[in-house]
């Protein structure tokens, strides 16, 4: 991409003198537009930033295994029963895949169990989903837990 101006610098004297740029005015060939420096410095800065974040990941942290915490966010009535919105947070420093969350509702007649699986929960991140029940979770005793994960 920087080739554009680089080429311009070279072709102009070349076209004029019909000789390689190196033979024509070395001063002209040395001129670099300010934008070229700016772009390169930006690139160098961003690269350094990215490298340092990844290096910190690689060398500083001793990643702790996924620690999964499930919380209910609320209950909504649906045409077919009730939907509990849940948020699974991974407090650990390693990502977890295939996280299965199970909710058990007791105290509203037959105990019922629902589960849902999350494809992927990154380290120190969370995902939301829903668990459906036929009984009203607000009336019973709802327990939520993450049952397991797969190392991605």
């Amino acid at each position, binding site marked *: *991409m920087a080739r554009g*101006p680089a080429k311009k610098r070279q072709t102009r004297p070349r076209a004029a003198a019909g000789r390689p740029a190196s033979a024509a005015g070395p001063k002209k060939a040395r001129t670099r537009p300010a934008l070229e420096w700016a*772009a390169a410095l930006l690139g160098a800065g961003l*690269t350094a930033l990215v490298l340092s974040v990844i290096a910190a990941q690689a060398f500083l942290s001793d990643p702790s295994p996924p620690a999964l915490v499930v919380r209910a966010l609320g209950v909504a009535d649906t045409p077919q029963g009730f939907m509990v919105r849940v948020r699974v947070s991974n407090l650990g420093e390693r990502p977890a895949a295939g996280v299965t969350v199970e909710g058990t509702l007791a105290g509203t007649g037959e105990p019922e169990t629902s589960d849902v699986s999350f494809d992927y929960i990154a380290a120190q991140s969370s995902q939301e989903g829903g668990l459906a029940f036929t009984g009203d979770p607000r009336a019973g005793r709802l327990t939520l837990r993450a049952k397991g994960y797969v190392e991605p």
Partner: protein
Amino acid sequence: MARSENGAYARALARGVGGALLFSFPLLMTMEMWNLGVTMAPERLLLMMVASLPMLLGLSYFAGFEATFRLTDEILDAFAALAIGLLLATGMLALFGAVRGDATLAENVGKIAICAIPGAMGALLAGKQFGGQVMEAPRPREAAGYPGDLFIMMTGAVFLAFNVAPTEEVVLIAHQMAPFQSLGLAALSIGLLHVIVYELGFPGEDLRRGSGGSARVFAIFTGPGYGIALAMSAYALWSFGRLDGVALSEAAGMILVLAFPAALGCATARLVV
């Protein structure tokens, strides 16, 4: 004068963005790529990023026009290309909702970093591809010599290997192929590599063909080229953790599958660079 040079450079940057988009959008729109940005072992991602710097530098040299190697220019170009690759990946991934404000910095940076490298390669090539002005004979190419040819084959192999390696299909294809099919694929890879290299050619190839013919091209380009394709496939698979805990025969199968696109990358890199 200064203004027009800046203007010309701005246009070159714009071409670079176009090239970066063209080269990186298949990866930007691939789910496995985002996941890899997070799940990849950070040491391997770091190694990949660091290794991409000399590769971009080399590409900047070989894709360039100048007959002389001026390190400052190449370094500036390589970093400018990285700026384009990183910013483009950030912008597009944010637009796609893959990079989010509520995710951790490390997660977002991982996703961006892994998509930025192909973008930077595209940016460098676009500066050359769409340059448009008639140049003299491609001097850097001749000057590049045999190691340069191998280097360019390697960048082609790396590019396609890293494009395909993240997908599940590599594993799946390796699984569903019987041994004789694997051997057939290897033969096809080598055959295509040879035909493309021999027929479509390398610059200065007239000389080589005259001096040696098909067998010679096979020995100096096709053989080493397939070796490079295999090595880069193995590296890409290892980087993405696909070889971890996998039996040797399984690993060989996957490498062989990935070496097919890698060999095509090897063979065609010369047409692009």
